[in-house]
C-alpha cells in the first residue's frame, strides 16, 4: 500500500537552527503512530509540516503522492487536521466552534453531528457556553471535537490529553481507538505520556533534536529498543 506520508530528507530551520531533520519516514494509511521525545525535539514542528501549515526548507514531504507546497490543493489539505498543543478557540460558543470546519466545507445544518461529538466527549451540556469561559480541559476537548467531527483521513494530535483528568483521558483514548478502528483514519499522536503511546499506538517513534532516532512496533519500542537513547528515554534516564 502506498504510504500516506513520505518524508525525504525533510529539513526545517528557524533562524539558522535546524529543528526538524528527517532523513526518511513513511506513514502507512490507517496506522496509529505515536511520537515521543523530549521538549524542544521538534514534534510540534513536525506536525505543522505534516498539516501543510509550513513547508520544508529542503527535502520533500509527500502526502498521497503529492509534494507539500503552497500549491497543494485545498481538497487535499482538508483531509488532514490537527488538535493543537495549545488550542485557540473562536470567541463564540462551543457549538459554533465545533461546527466551524463543517461550515467551511459547505455544510450548513450540522447540529446533529456537532451534538453527537460533544456528547461523546462529555461536553453535551456545554454546547451553548462561550468558548472563552471553558476550563482548559474542556477547551482541549472542544479542540478535539472540532477536529474529529470532520472525520479526517489523517488526524494529528499534539498532547491532546495534557490537561485532562484520568476519567477524561480514558474517555478520549477510547474515542481515538474507536475512530482509528472504524474510519481507517491515520492517527499521529504526539505525547509525553509513554504509557499512552503503549496503550494506543501500533508504532512508536522517538524524536530527538529534530531527528527520528528509532521507529518500531510499539511493543518492540518499549521492550526491546534498538537504540540506547530509546532505552534511556523509555526508562526515564535520558539527560537532555
Amino acid at each position, binding site marked *: 500500500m502506498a504510504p500516506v506520508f513520505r518524508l525525504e530528507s525533510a529539513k526545517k530551520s528557524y533562524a539558522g537552527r535546524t529543528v526538524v531533520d528527517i532523513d526518511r519516514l513513511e506513514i502507512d494509511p490507517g496506522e496509529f503512530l505515536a511520537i515521543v521525545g523530549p521538549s524542544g525535539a521538534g514534534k510540534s514542528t513536525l506536525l505543522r509540516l505534516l498539516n501543510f501549515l509550513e513547508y520544508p526548507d529542503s527535502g520533500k514531504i509527500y502526502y498521497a503522492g503529492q509534494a507539500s507546497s503552497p500549491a497543494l490543493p485545498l481538497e487535499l489539505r482538508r483531509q488532514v487536521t490537527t488538535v493543537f498543543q495549545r488550542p485557540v478557540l*473562536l470567541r463564540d460558543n462551543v457549538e459554533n466552534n465545533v461546527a466551524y470546519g463543517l461550515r467551511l466545507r459547505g455544510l450548513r445544518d450540522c447540529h446533529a453531528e456537532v451534538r453527537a461529538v460533544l456528547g461523546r466527549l462529555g461536553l453535551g451540556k456545554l454546547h451553548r457556553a462561550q468558548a472563552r469561559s471553558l476550563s482548559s480541559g474542556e477547551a482541549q476537548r472542544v479542540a478535539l471535537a472540532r477536529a474529529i467531527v470532520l472525520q479526517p483521513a489523517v488526524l494529528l494530535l499534539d498532547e491532546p490529553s495534557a490537561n485532562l483528568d484520568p476519567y477524561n483521558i480514558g474517555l478520549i483514548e477510547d474515542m481515538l481507538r474507536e475512530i482509528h478502528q472504524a474510519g481507517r483514519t491515520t492517527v499521529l499522536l504526539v505525547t509525553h505520556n509513554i504509557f499512552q503511546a503503549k496503550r494506543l499506538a501500533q508504532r512508536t517513534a522517538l524524536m530527538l533534536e529534530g531527528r527520528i532516532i528509532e521507529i518500531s512496533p510499539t511493543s518492540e519500542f518499549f521492550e526491546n529498543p534498538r537504540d540506547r537513547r530509546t532505552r534511556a528515554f523509555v526508562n526515564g534516564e535520558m539527560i537532555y
Partner: protein
Amino acid sequence: MQQIWQGILQGLRLLFTGDPALWRIILLSAKVSGAALLISAVMGIPLGAILGLVKFPGKRLIQAAIYTGMGLPPVVVGLAVYLLLSRNGILGPLNLPWVPELFTVPAMVLAQVILATPLVAGYTMTAVAEVDPALRLQMQSLGASHAQSLLAVLREAHLGVIVALVGGLGGIISEVGAVMMVGGNVEGSTRVLTTAIMLETRRGNFDLAIGLGFVLLLLAFLINVGAAHLLGKEH
C-alpha cells in the same frame, strides 16, 4: 448662576418642542459626521486589517503615519483642506467636478474623513494584531483557505472594530476646528452643533448654546451606550 439655569431650561424646551433651527443643526451634524465615518470605515478598516496582519517593507513607516494621523489637530486639517479647495489653492482652480467647493457640506465631510480614517485604521490595526497569532494556523488546519483564515481573524477582532468606529465618530462629532474652517458656519447650510455653540456663546445666546451643548453630550452618550451594548452582548 440664574442665567445658566435659565439657559438649560430654555435649551431643553427648544429641543423638545422641535425648534426647527435647532433640529436642522442637529441633523446636519449627524449627516456630516455620519457620512465621514462611513467613508472612513470603508477605507480605514481594510487598511487597519492589512497593517495588523501582513508583514511588508515600509509597514512601520505607514504605522507611524497612522499614529500621527490619530492625533492630528483638527484646525491643521481644516487649514490643509482649505488650502486644497480654495479658489487660489491647489485643486480649487482646476474646477474638477469631483472636488468639492469650500463652505459646503462635502468639504466638511472631506475634512472629517481625513480626521477619522487614521483613528479607524489605527484602532482596527491594534484589534487585529491582538488576535492570537496561532488562531490563523489552527483555522487553516480545520480547512480554512488563506482568505477564510483572514476572515476568521477579522471576525475575532470585530469588537475592536466597533471600538474603532466609536473612536472615529467621537473624534469628529465633537471637533470644531476643521468644520469651522472649511464649512464656515453658514446658517442653514453648514452650521453644525460645535460651530453653532461657538457662535451662540459669542453672541451671548447662552440658552441656545446650552441646548446645543446638551444635545452634543447626549449624542456622545448615546453613541457610547450603543457601543457598550454591542460589546456587552458578547460577554
